[in-house]
């Protein structure tokens, strides 16, 4: 159920350069790949942030400081409350498959965590391919391992794992079903390379709930789809990526 909630910050810690993990005490429940709209004090529009983990009594968000809003978020200490609206959007489906590959680049990684957790609950084999710029920016590789996922890493500078993007790792594997989130070029490459799976998109949003038409993309027939409501997760091949 979509709701608005004053969630209390339990922890808000830096886990890599410019990357923060915030745990929020709240009653909101969510599906993997859904997101919340965060009302950051001192800004006007809400900020869409993916739900990284649903614990039952809290939500975990992982965010990168890229501008004004996320910079303010990073300053908020435990005990402060933060108004969140959600859960929003259509997330990653948990399909009845034997094995799934989850591909994530940078801050595309967070929504894959809850997805992996749900797949692991069903005993599905999960291989997670994570892409970073360099060694010191790696986060959550161990967390995925603890879930029992096979973790493969790509770094642009080759300092850890395969040199290059997530695609370099994927090329070396069999990929029956993929669910991915990350920068647009990565999603484009995945949409071209694989027929089966899902990708999660980003867009500038106002309402976050499907009412304003601010976040639309086009499907193959030229019809408008709302990233916030019809997505952010779409089946591979559905959306024209520009």
């Amino acid at each position, binding site marked *: 159920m979509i709701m608005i909630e004053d969630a209390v910050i339990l922890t808000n810690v830096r886990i890599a350069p410019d990357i923060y993990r915030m745990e929020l005490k709240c009653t909101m429940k969510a599906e993997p790949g859904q997101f919340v709209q965060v009302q950051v004090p001192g800004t*006007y529009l809400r900020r869409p942030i993916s739900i990284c983990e649903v614990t039952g009594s809290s939500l975990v968000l992982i965010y990168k400081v890229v501008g004004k809003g996320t910079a303010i978020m990073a300053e908020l200490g435990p005990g402060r409350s933060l108004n969140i609206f959600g859960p929003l959007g259509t997330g990653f489906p948990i399909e009845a498959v034997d094995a799934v590959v989850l591909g994530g680049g940078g801050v595309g990684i967070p929504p894959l965590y809850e997805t992996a957790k749900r797949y692991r609950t069903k005993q599905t084999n999960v291989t997670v391919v994570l892409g970073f710029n360099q060694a010191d920016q790696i986060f959550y590789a161990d967390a995925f391992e603890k879930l029992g996922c096979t973790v493969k890493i790509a770094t642009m500078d080759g300092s850890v794992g395969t040199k290059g993007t997530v695609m370099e790792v994927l090329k070396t594997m069999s990929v029956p079903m993929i669910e991915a989130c990350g920068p647009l070029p990565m999603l484009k490459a995945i949409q071209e390379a694989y027929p089966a799976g899902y990708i999660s998109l980003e*867009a500038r949003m106002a*309402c976050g709930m499907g*009412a*304003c038409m601010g*976040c639309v993309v086009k499907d193959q027939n030229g019809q408008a789809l709302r990233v916030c*409501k019809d997505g952010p997760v779409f089946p591979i091949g559905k959306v024209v990526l520009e």
Partner: protein
Amino acid sequence: MKLNVELPGLHLKNPIIPASGCFGYGREFAELYDLSCLGGIAIKSATPEERFGNPTPRIAETPSGMLNAIGLQNHGVTYIKEHELPWLAQFDTEIIANVAGAAEEDYVKVIETLNDSEIVKAYELNISCPNVKHGGIGLGVDPKLAAHVTKLAKDAAKKPVYVKLSPNVTDITEIAKAVADAGADGLVLINTLMGMRIDLRTGKPLLANKTGGLSGPAIKPVAIRMVWQVAQAVDLPIIGVGGITDAEDVLEFLNAGASAVEVGAQNFIDPYVCPKIIEQLPGVLEKYGYASIDEAVGRSFRDE
């Protein structure tokens, strides 16, 4: 306290109306609360044919406000009539159909299509969309063009016609008078101010459409000023809109001369804002010593 407001064609149980383009056709908000609590709903602009609208990005944040360049995306009036209006009929609230187009005839076409819909109680002519041109000039910024499209709409319409004015003009009272003389039943003001943001990373305008419409609290002082000017210049009911976030803002618009209000971008910030305002309004009116909505309307320029 009774909050009801009687306007041409509209029996509003309270003066709170979500603004066009900020509420879709209500479907998403109906998941959050019962739309029957609303005075009315101004639905998203309808054009004769389907429009995809502008490329993205369509949204940018600004200090205490936002820019949008949606570009009148909609499925066309026939689709709306067949798929959205019947669904809206379940709610006990007044539906205002916002009418837009790329040319004058478009307004007439949309109105003719909707004339026999019982659920539509009034039209709101959006002559203020900066994307719609007529001989290179927006309809809403030239008194003659504004009056002409109003007249065509009035001739075609079987329901009252409200005209929604653009604030991007030198003298809003001149446009308001022209539209009033052409037969408008009411005025809605204001639409968005034309603005721009530049993305410093590219050095180019952030919106794909380059310019966009500024809305939110930032524009409230301009909206209040225009409502105040027009309320004294023209003898028509005014629906005020621009930057409303709470019941005190509503009272400010009433004092300025509006009889009802529309709430736009704040629906994105707080999706429950309309029911919240409706709940707070009696207390706020009381706090400032009003026994009715009427007493507050136009207070700023009435001698007592």
